[in-house]
């Protein structure tokens, strides 16, 4: 457990006059497991609570406080992957939830989306907390591809709702971990590595508010940077540690290869980059400048915020970085560019899912492109057209217009008759038309 120097309080620019406190709230099954792991390395000032409806899931949480929700309706069972049931339970117990989160200044809301309770209750809690003036940092876990499209679609809807209410919403797709991991890696190993990174991030963010350091990063700055309501987006985070003399370069290489940064692409496309350095002595201004230059070279237009803290328990040699990237501020009605598929740029699961929901039905792929004709071919076809010159209102004289081989011609009074053919020729079609005679 890390001790916090009581002298290294948050600066007087903090909005809150009371003592700074934070709640790490895990909602649902995934959130419960993550917070249970986080609470093992508990930070001073952080409280850990797990909220779930499933009694079995709550029984497995052994290191922190648990709260059961929806006792009367669900009677100790889960929501059955129903967001609507979870939302209705949250609405029913709104007052209790408001009381739970309202007394904190910072709320880490951790939930796995795609199921029922996490995706349904967490956005409601975020809304209630924001109404109470709590700064909400939401960390949501996006399901694997193999869990099915239904789960992904539910997760996307929950993600959209959370983005509206949380001040800072970080989405961590499990699939990106899977892409980097070994094929034979099992779920336990993946989850453990993910939980470790989340724990480091939560801890690092919290430490930056409490621990003294050369570069201060307070809650007020976070609020002003991420607290706007319009155009909020989903960010991501990455945690890296390095030791040795060239630790800055090592950190940079680790970040560029980080799965949650999509191998650096999210860093390059970010609008805001928050870099929190956690280390003991030895983190110099030169290191900060070097890092800032590297980020600027990758992403010249990004707003870079650097913070640094020096907790007492850290190894003197270790330098840890918690990087939070936030996309560029966009109005919600703007059309996002289509995702690029390929080996070079990995497609975000979130973007794909949203595109899947919003995408219109593509046109048929059986329509061949119009043939490209040379000028001599165009002239030949024009001369063979049955109409020319004065029939311009039909557009037949457009030299750029393609000419289909199949011509649908009216047969006048024989339209409703059984068609007559001679040697596969439709005899009902006027003879002059079939022979290509041009009548002005």
């Amino acid at each position: 457990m890390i001790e916090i120097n009581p002298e290294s309080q948050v600066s007087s620019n903090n909005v809150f006059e009371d003592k700074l406190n934070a709640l790490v709230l895990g909602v649902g099954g995934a959130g419960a497991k993550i917070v249970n792991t986080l609470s093992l390395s508990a930070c001073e000032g952080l409280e850990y609570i797990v909220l779930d409806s499933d009694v079995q899931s709550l029984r497995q949480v052994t290191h922190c406080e648990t709260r059961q929700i929806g006792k009367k309706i669900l009677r100790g069972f889960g929501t059955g992957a129903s967001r609507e049931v979870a939302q209705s339970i949250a609405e029913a117990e709104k007052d209790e939830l408001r009381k739970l989160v309202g007394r904190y200044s910072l709320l880490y809301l951790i939930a796995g989306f795609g199921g029922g309770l996490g995706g349904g209750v967490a956005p409601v809690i975020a809304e209630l907390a924001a109404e109470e003036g709590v700064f909400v940092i939401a960390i949501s876990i996006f399901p694997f591809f193999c869990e099915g499209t239904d789960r992904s679609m539910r997760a996307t809807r929950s993600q959209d709702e959370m983005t509206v209410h949380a001040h800072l919403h970080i989405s961590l797709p499990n699939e990106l971990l899977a892409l980097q991991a070994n094929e034979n890696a099992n779920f336990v190993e993946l989850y453990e590595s993910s939980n470790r990174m989340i724990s480091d991030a939560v801890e690092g963010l919290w430490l930056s508010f409490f621990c003294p350091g050369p570069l201060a990063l307070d809650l007020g700055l976070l609020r002003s940077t991420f607290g706007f309501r319009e155009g909020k987006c989903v960010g991501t985070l990455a945690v890296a540690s390095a030791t040795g003399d060239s630790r800055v370069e090592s950190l940079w290489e680790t970040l560029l290869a980080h799965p949650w940064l999509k191998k650096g692409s999210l860093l390059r496309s970010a609008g805001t980059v928050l870099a929190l350095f956690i280390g003991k002595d030895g983190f110099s201004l030169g290191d900060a400048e070097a890092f800032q230059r590297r980020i600027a070279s990758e992403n010249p237009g990004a707003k870079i915020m650097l913070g640094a803290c020096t907790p007492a328990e850290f190894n003197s040699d270790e330098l840890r970085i918690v990087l939070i990237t936030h996309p560029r501020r966009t109005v919600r009605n703007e059309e996002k560019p289509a995702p690029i598929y390929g080996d070079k740029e990995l497609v975000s699961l979130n973007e794909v899912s949203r595109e899947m929901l919003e995408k219109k039905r593509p046109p048929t792929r059986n329509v061949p492109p119009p043939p490209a004709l040379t000028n001599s071919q165009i002239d030949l076809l024009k001369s063979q057209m049955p109409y020319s010159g004065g029939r311009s209102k039909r557009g037949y004289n457009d030299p750029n217009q393609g000419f289909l081989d199949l011509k649908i011609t009216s047969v006048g009074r024989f339209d409703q008759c059984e068609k007559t053919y001679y040697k596969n020729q439709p005899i009902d079609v006027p003879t002059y038309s079939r022979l290509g005679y041009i009548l002005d």
Partner: protein
Amino acid sequence: MLFKKRKQYATGIEIGTSKICVVIAEVSEKCPFKVLGVGQSVSSGVRKGVIFNTEATIAEVRAAVADAENLANVSIGEVCVGITGGHIKSAFSVGEHMLESADGRVTEEDREDALKNAIECPPKEISESVLVLHRIKQQPLLDGQLEEPGLNARGRILTQPLYWIYGNRNQIWEPIKILQDLCLEPKYPVFNGFAASIALMDAEQRKKGGLIIDLGAGTTEFAFTHGGCIRYAGSLSIGGDHVSNDLALGLKLEIGVAENLKTFHGRAICDPQAKNALLPFKTPNGENKSVRFDYFQIIMELRLKEIFQIIRETLAEAGLQLGPDQGVMLCGGGACIQMISSLASSVFQAQSWPFCLNHLDGICDSLKKPEFATPIGLARYCASKMSRKTGGPLANVFSLKGLTGKRKERE
């Protein structure tokens, strides 16, 4: 006696695409064939020779029959109805018979046996779904050579070709049922081209051979005769309506206006002097308009030429071609188009025989028009059947009895 003492009345009914025509003729000892009356009505329930609106056709046939009966002042009974449409097809069968007489001479019994063999071996196209209209005896072959007309020829194998004309069973029964509903006795369904050849060709022309083309509104029938019998016959679902349709689409006219212009100004071969000339006309609304006369003639020529070319190609595929002394005779409403005979002559590369019904007695001059050729031929067929001792094909529900037995008058 050849004829019964009391008078008999032979009726031919043609249910065409544009009109329904009924011809009533008297069959008696004094005059084998005398046309008493003709009744006509507009046909609105027939398309391309096939009845699609039975109720309308019944009413129109009733009106035409009533007109004819009023004019002839008789009440008709047995009727010969014309059958046409694109479903009419034809095929050959061959019957062979080994001559049994010791001297190898051909006897009457040999001919009958050869004919029987030809009847009993129908073409593979003859099935349950088709109805046979005619089985026309062709010239028999003796040891592969055409048999001399007289008897007492010698040989080993007598071959009797038989030409079958058949069509879709349902479509043939449709006009018969209509006439039965009108309490008439449709005894003889006859292919229109067959009837036209009966009416138009005299014995000499039939022997010489020639091509009869009936240019109707919805269909065009043709029959190629040679050696006194029909060698090939067929029906195309193309007719004068296609010409009017082409004019309406090409010149942007109403179909009625196109029909009128075709009737009054139609020409089968373009007139070089008509280039850039205008053909004025009045629309039903009373507006004065005009169309390019050369385009008008071009459209007509192309369509009519195409019809003749199709007939020529069909005959060529059957291995038939008009000889130097053979000719083309046109009938039907389309025969009234100017220069149509010249066009047919140029396409078939044969002489064009002018339309003539003078060899038939008992027809007044007003009826000696191309459009009456088929119904007169139907009535004449009916009269020839009634003159025989046995009934026609319909009397025994299309059995084969009518064609076996005594040597019949060559059809």
